[in-house]
Structure formats: C-alpha cells, structure tokens
C-alpha cells in the first residue's frame, strides 16, 4: 500500500490511539511527565515512525537512516512509546520512565536510549542540531532526511531563528521542521505570553517553505512530510494540547501533570471508545 492509501491512514490512526494509551500509562506509572504536549505530538510522531522515516530498529546507528530530533524534548513519552512499539527496546521499559538506572530519562538522552538521535530538553536547541545533521548529510553525500519537531513556545528562543537563517543560507532541502502548534505554553496561551503570528509569514521571510496542516489529520501529515521543496521546509501543524482526552484538551495545566488512577481510567476509556 502506498503511504496515502486509506488502509495506511486507518492503520496509522489505530497506532496513534495505541500510542496515546501507552503515553498516559507511562506518565501515570512514573507519577511524572508531560502529557499535554506528548498527546498533541502523537499523530505527527506516529506518521514519522510508522510510515515516513527510513529507519531500522535493529540498527539504530545505521548511517543512512533518517534522523528525528524531538526539540520539544518534554514530549519524550510520545517518542519513547513510538520507539518501543517499533522495536528499538522492550515495551516493559515504558513502565520505568524517569527512574534511576532506567533507560528512559525525563528528556531524550541519546546515550541512554536506543533510537534517540539527539539529546534534547532545553528548548530552542534542537533545530540547530538538525541543521548540523542536514549539513553533514549533504557533505557526506548521504540521502537521509532530518526531521525536527518544535514546540510553539519554543519559538520564543532566539536560537531557533539563528538556526532558521542558517538552514535557509545552506538551502537544506533535506531538513523538515514541524511545529506542534497547540497554542499553549507553560504560563498560558501563546497569544498571551508571546504571540507568534503571523507564523507562516515569519518563516517565509526567513527563507523557508511553509505548509500549514491539521496536525491530527493523518493524510495531511503524510502529504506534507512527503512534499519536496527547494529548501528547508516548515510544517505548521495546528494541534490540540492533550488531544484525545477530553478533560486534557486545551488545558494548560496538563502541560506537566501526571494523571491519577481515576483520571487514567477515564482517559483510557475515552481512547478505547474512539473509533
């Protein structure tokens, strides 16, 4: 089946639902983590890891692999679940998020977790690393692509704009940045803390080609990720923080709070009940 085949889209929706359940179980077990931003990123992460990226869980360091940087590193539960479900490590590790001695750190750690292409967590830094990887790919004449998932609040960081200028200068067409645009940051809405609009126009002005999509629509995500461009590509994915769990959706508080037993049950029921 091709990527945009309806059967593939259905398959991806099913996987994303499963991924969401695992994310919530994981954060609940750890009593710690970031559910809101993990859930808003879940569909994009699913499409990348289960359809678009050329990767090999048996060979995490394969030199030709596509790279992924979760620049909004706090959403790592989504990434860890995707990696586990893809077979980079056993699913049992998902029960031990943030535990001493465990392989799953509070933010992605490339030295501790198979499949993590770069360490992240401090916002604003991942795009630069992605730029470096894309440059290295071109220099060594490798065909891999680099994907960087950014948070929206993260765009407040000046380093993002340094990296954006750099990517544009070097016309890095092997680089795709995706903004998980859920319109909420830690202290409130992005409009309230630091308005980002006109977002697409800004990135255009910085030399990027911009595609705007619904970040929860598999077909749109697929098409956007696969579209070829002449330079670096930005996908503005409109998302909902906490997507998939009604009481979490669009609620700032769920940025960094773990669900309790009751809340977990409610969430899992909702996710199980969705078609």
């Amino acid at each position: 089946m091709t990527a945009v085949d309806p059967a593939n889209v259905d398959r991806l929706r099913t996987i994303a639902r499963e991924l969401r359940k695992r994310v919530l179980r994981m954060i609940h077990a750890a009593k710690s983590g970031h559910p809101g931003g993990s859930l808003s990123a879940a569909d994009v992460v699913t499409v990348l890891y289960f359809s678009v990226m050329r990767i090999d869980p048996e060979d995490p360091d394969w030199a030709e692999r596509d790279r992924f940087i979760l620049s909004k590193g706090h959403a790592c539960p989504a990434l860890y679940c995707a990696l586990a479900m893809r077979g980079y490590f056993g699913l049992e590790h998902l029960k031990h998020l943030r535990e001493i001695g465990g392989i799953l750190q509070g933010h992605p750690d490339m030295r501790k977790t198979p499949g993590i292409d770069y360490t992240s967590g401090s916002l604003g830094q991942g795009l630069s690393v992605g730029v470096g990887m894309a440059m290295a790919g071109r220099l060594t004449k490798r065909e891999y692509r680099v994907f960087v998932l950014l948070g929206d609040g993260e765009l407040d960081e000046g380093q993002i704009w340094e990296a954006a200028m750099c990517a544009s200068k070097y016309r890095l067409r092997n680089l795709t940045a995706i903004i998980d645009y859920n319109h909420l940051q830690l202290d409130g809405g992005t409009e309230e803390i630091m308005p980002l609009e006109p977002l697409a126009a800004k990135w255009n002005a910085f030399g990027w080609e911009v595609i705007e999509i619904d970040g929860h629509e598999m077909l749109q995500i697929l098409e956007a990720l696969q579209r070829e461009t002449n330079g670096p590509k930005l996908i503005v994915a409109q998302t909902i923080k906490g997507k998939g769990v009604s009481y979490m959706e669009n609620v700032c508080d769920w940025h960094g709070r773990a669900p309790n037993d009751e809340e977990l049950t409610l969430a899992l029921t909702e996710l199980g009940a969705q078609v």
Partner: protein
Amino acid sequence: MEQGIRRTIAYAAQMRYDVVRMIENVKSGHPGGSLSCVDILACLYFDVMRICPDEPDWPGRDRFVLSKGHAAPALYAALARRGYFPATELGKLRQIGGILEGHPDHNHTPGVDATTGCLGEGLSIGIGMALAARLDHADYYVYVVLGDGETNEGQIWEAAQVGAHYGLGHLVVFLDLNNLQFDGTLDEVLRPWDLSAKWKTFGWDVQDIDGHDHRQILRAVSKAKNRKNRPHMVICQTTKGKGAPVMENQCAWHSIVNLQQMNDCLPKLAQEIRRYEDILNAADVW
C-alpha cells in the same frame, strides 16, 4: 539648506574627523562601522534627542543604546561634541586611566546609557528601558542602533518579539545596513534577506531610508513618533567607512588595515569641518 540639517551635517563632519583621528591615534578600533553610523548619531545627538549633558542621569532624558558597540568611537565623538566630557578625552580612547573604553561602558563614560560590545544584546536593553518608561508613565524615547551582521544573533529576535508584543511605540531602532560584516558581505555570511519583511512579520513598523541623508533620518523619526502602537525599525542603507574613500565599502576596514592610509584621510576630513566653522565655533582639528 535648512539650518537644522546644516547643523547636524556640520557635527557629522566633526565626528567623522574625530572617529578617524581617535582610532589612528591609539592604533586600535573599528573605523568602518563607526563611520557608517555617524550620520544617524549626529541627527540623534544634535537634533532629535532630549538630553542634558550637564545631567547625564536626568530621569526624563531620551536613552540611546549603541548595540553595535564596536562603533563606540562614533558615540564618543557625539558625546564629546555635545558636551558630556572634554574633547581631549578622545585622545585617550582605549587607554588605561581614560574614560573611553574599547566598547561603550556605562560605568566609565558620562552619557553612555548602556554597556555594550557583545553583539545582539543592546536591543534587549533598549526594550527594557522602553518598558520601564511605560511603567513610570514617562514619555522619553529610546533609540537603538543595530549592526546588520548583528541581526544574525538570536537574541535580537527574542527582543523583537517582546517589542512588538508590548507595542513599544517609544522605541526607535536604526539598523546600520552597510552590507558588510566581519567575514564578508551579508550575502556571503548568512544571507539574511528580506530584512524589511522579517521585521514586519515580527510586528514592527518598518521604514527604509538612506542612512546618510539627514533629511530622511529626521523625517523617519518624525514618522515614527506619529505611529504610536508599534516599535519602529528604520533600515538605513549605509556605506561602511563613509567619508573616508579608502575605507568605503571595504570589509577589511572593519578593523584598521593601514595606519598611514588612515592618517592620509585626515586632511580632507579636516577640510570638510572647516566649511562649518560658523556652526562649530571652531573646527576642532586636533
């Protein structure tokens, strides 16, 4: 020519001489980038800004931040000629015991509102000053001069976001677009175009002018003051090394290339000052 413009042009001529002389004297400094912003500073210090050299800390004063701090000689020339300190201090640039540091230093020099030198930091300081003005219900303006290479720095864009978010209409920023940074043209280094579009999308009111045309500079400030709710970016097309033909548009003259050539510029610069002896009282060809 209107008297007002003739005055600022006269002082610009004096400042150009001062800049080349003070750098040549100490054999150290940044002539190209200092000369490219002389006209902007002359208009600010000799026409636009409400300041009081006898009272450098007057709370109601307009503020100025030279974010491209390596152009300090231009600022020092403006401050000296405006009366903040004796012009004899210009001969002690970068010397131990002098009051003129290699880059602007608020703690060392009367009239310097902010310590700068590390590119990318001055705009944030200017933003802070403008926010303070608002909190204090004060009506002073804050003027900042940025370098063009300096806009590579991410912190500039952090500050730009804040300026727009708070609608800082009393903040007027001049971008000294001489198109040359340390390692080459802007195109060669980071290709930052389109600058005007960038600042507009970041929510600024943008004007594009000739940064050596005093009429245009003064008109830009006027226009900015009439548009209240956004911070103002005035992109000034300039020539690095303006006024010293051997340096004009030459990347290498970011720093000193040849002392003799610098020295050779001085007679013509001195001649230029003498044309305005009526305004300057005496041409100071020190």
